[in-house]
């Protein structure tokens, strides 16, 4: 009995591949609507140039956290899509570092649909975008870390990172 319990505990998590693809595109598009982005900069998907930029990096695809099936055969899956947003820059002053951190923290607040002040204006994400993939609906986006300096190179480039997770629900009938 203990062997079966151990096996269940160590089973590889299931991945919602179709959901992962849909979320990657939608989340990247959503981030590019954030009014706090520096002028001329856009969020790229899973890429950063050596000199600088902002990139969205998914961690592992959308993991199916739970599956509930009711007596009519209707299935509700709760899926988690962990991701990071990395802001690469070559700051010369602490003020520039602070601005990078504040930008990412503000982005995280905005993704959580909290009000955030950008250029003296309060902005708030009114609703999450549709996923256009089956019956998948975004439930929440939340930060799992504050913004921090993840790495620094000898030539002065620094990667500031904020981690988050997007939770969505997928429903279908068996």
């Amino acid at each position, binding site marked *: 009995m203990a062997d079966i319990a151990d096996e269940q505990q160590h089973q590889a998590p299931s991945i919602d591949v179709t959901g992962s693809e849909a979320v990657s595109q939608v989340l990247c598009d959503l981030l590019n609507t954030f009014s706090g982005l520096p002028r001329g900069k856009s969020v790229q998907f899973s890429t950063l140039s050596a000199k600088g930029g902002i990139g969205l990096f998914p961690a592992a695809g959308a993991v199916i956290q739970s599956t*509930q099936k*009711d*007596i*009519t*055969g*209707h299935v509700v899956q709760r899926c988690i899509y962990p991701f990071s947003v990395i802001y690469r820059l070559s700051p010369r002053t602490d003020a520039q570092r602070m601005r990078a951190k504040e930008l990412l923290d503000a982005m995280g607040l905005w993704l959580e649909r909290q009000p955030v002040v950008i250029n003296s204006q309060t902005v708030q994400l009114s609703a999450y975008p549709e996923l256009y993939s089956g019956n998948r609906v975004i439930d929440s986006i939340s930060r799992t870390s504050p913004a921090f300096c993840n790495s620094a190179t000898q030539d002065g480039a620094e990667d500031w990172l904020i981690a988050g997770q997007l939770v969505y629900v997928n429903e279908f009938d068996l």
Partner: protein
Amino acid sequence: MPDTNTVTAPAAKLARKYYAHFLDASFGGSSVNYVRLGKDLEEYNEELNPEVDTAENILGEMSVNHKGYKPQSEVSPYYVYEDDPLCEKLWEIINERKTADGCMTTKVDVLLDSTGTVEWAYREDVLVVPTSAGGDTSGVQIPFTIYSVGNRVAGSFNISTKTFTPASSTSSTP
């Protein structure tokens, strides 16, 4: 000699979705409106509550007196959805504190085979009594109990039109 290499596939369990339960949301209204129970319900049982008395005489003989059943079932959780006719009736019962005939309706239990064909259907008079209203942050809930009153009749059930036709329903002109 029997063929020892023949392997017979074991019989498959019938999926829970093939035993369906419907409540008439009109509660005795002019137009019967059967709605299926089961959304958000991972488990639903009709507890038969059999009444059985056993006695042993001085000769060591057992006698069993089976008087009948007192069936009832719990529907919990039951989440409120917009435009759900059953929810509208439950709100009416709760808000007007209805009792007795105000809570009477009919329930149809249907067994289908794995092809979706109705094998049998029974309709019974029931009393629907909400047990609470409110719930946690997952959504507004009105769990209720269904008490069987009797008058159980066999018949046929059209899954598409959700229409029950009693088996003894033959036109008889005096």
